[in-house]
């Protein structure tokens, strides 16, 4: 198996199962129902985050639901945020985040959720329903302009979706504290003029080198609003830790970058085929099925 084959298989193993997608869908439907009960058809409610961008991986995903009110609604953005918070608090345990509201204890939970659900209230800037103001609960600025469709477009058309998924998995498996939006923008910036983005091995190695060498002074802007410098709150210490993690990974793969076992190591996957002995029976993918029920 080549390194690229390994990385492709790794990504395939991270695709969300039908059950996970079904759970997401029913949780989204439940949250939407709660919001519609209070606000009727006024807000636009849809998926945001990695679900909308196509960058989900099994190990670490959240459900982001945006709830955007029309431009002419009679409340300011802070009132909208508080209204949505109040409505959700009547039913769930709600933790306010910077612009989102994190909710827990859904009716449709059969067990503890292993992902977060964030509702992001906002107000469209105009009737085109694209640019949006989001409330900012911390700091001096009380609102920021952004555009979910721009984010989705920039990411889904960057040619970097698979590398972003690889990056998210590397982050999760190595306990790296790096916000998803920053990770996405870093990868896009690093591979901006790189023509072999479909080569996961070389692209991801390039990204690791970029983290090691350039993260300390990189500046990242929200592609939907260049005044919003999203890397501003990113401390030198945090950048340094990420740079070191990338260097550690590069030290492993650089010793023989075409050896899949080196790559397995940085993704904390056990080495291949060390478990097959003389008395083992191997049952391959083509022989396998999945359980069903009438």
């Amino acid at each position, binding site marked *: 198996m080549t390194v690229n084959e390994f990385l492709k298989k790794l990504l395939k193993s991270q695709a969300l199962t039908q059950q996970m997608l079904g759970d997401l869908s029913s949780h989204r439907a439940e949250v939407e129902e709660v919001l519609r009960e209070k606000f009727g058809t006024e807000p636009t409610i849809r998926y945001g985050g990695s679900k909308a961008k196509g960058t989900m991986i099994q190990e670490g995903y959240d459900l982001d639901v945006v709830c955007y009110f029309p431009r002419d609604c009679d409340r300011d953005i802070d009132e909208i945020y508080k209204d949505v918070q109040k409505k959700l608090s009547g039913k769930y345990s709600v933790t306010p985040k910077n612009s989102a509201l994190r909710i827990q204890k859904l009716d449709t939970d059969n067990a503890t959720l292993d992902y977060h659900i964030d509702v992001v209230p906002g107000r469209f800037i105009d009737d085109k329903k694209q640019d949006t103001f989001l409330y900012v609960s911390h700091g001096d600025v009380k609102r920021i302009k952004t555009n979910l469709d721009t984010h989705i477009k920039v990411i889904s058309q960057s040619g970097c979706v698979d590398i972003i998924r690889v990056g998210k998995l590397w982050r999760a498996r190595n306990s790296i504290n790096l916000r998803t939006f920053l990770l996405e923008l870093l990868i896009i910036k690093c591979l901006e003029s790189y023509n072999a983005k479909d080569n996961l091995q070389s692209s991801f190695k390039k990204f690791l080198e970029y983290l090691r060498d350039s993260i300390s002074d990189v500046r990242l802007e929200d592609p939907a609003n260049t005044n919003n410098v999203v890397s501003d709150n990113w401390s030198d210490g945090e950048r340094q830790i990420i740079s070191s993690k990338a260097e550690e990974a590069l030290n492993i793969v650089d010793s023989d970058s075409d050896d899949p076992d080196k790559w397995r190591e940085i993704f904390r996957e056990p080495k291949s085929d060390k478990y097959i002995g003389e008395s083992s029976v191997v049952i391959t*993918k083509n022989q396998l099925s999945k359980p069903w029920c009438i």
Partner: protein
Amino acid sequence: MFSEKLKEITRLYPGLTYTQNGEKGLLKGTFKFCALYDRIEDKFVLNPLLHGDGDDRIIQDSYEIEVEFFPECSHPFPEVREVGGRIQKIIDKFNITDPRELHINKNQNSTICLCPKPELFLRYPNGVDLVDFFNALVLPYFYGLSYFERHKEWPRGSYGHGDAGIFEFYLEHRDKTTVDLAKSCIDSVSEKLSKEYMRKKGNIKGHWECICGSKLKIRDCHFKALEGLKLLKEDIGRLSIKLPF
């Protein structure tokens, strides 16, 4: 041939013993296994080498099972049941209200559904290969059940219940050139709504009610089943297959 297969089964799974009563054969006893599922390679390894380094992909477990079958006939297919009460314990542990979540057919004597019905016809057109049946279907199911007990999910996923699973299976295995798969899937369709959608003229729409009875839009509920259903309907027309309903 059969005796060789039987010998192989009892070698791989020594807790099972075989008895025959007329035409009916019964393999019964402790189904004990040590297996590893490699997500990256998407393969199972029965009796992997153990290195003592705590590989959490390896599961060692045992279930009391019985497998009823007809050695001399190609049909009906073997029926597998767990008879030691372990499945009931898992149901109780997770407060599972619908045993179908563990792929148990309560209406059919608690048999286990190891794979979609049409797959059995395609996999074993001339009768079941018992070794393949145990290694490729029974073992992954019980490995999956033990995995479910730990993680509350199936390691390779599972097909949707009822017709939804048939259509998902069709989507994954569709072969444009043969009619066998399409016919076999159509013959397994049982739900009123699925039959109605297949009979209806024109395209199936994503906003129609889901075939699983959830009342959700089919695209929001069983998207892959929707894709499979659309393809099956298209193939029925293209291959001039007559609907049996």
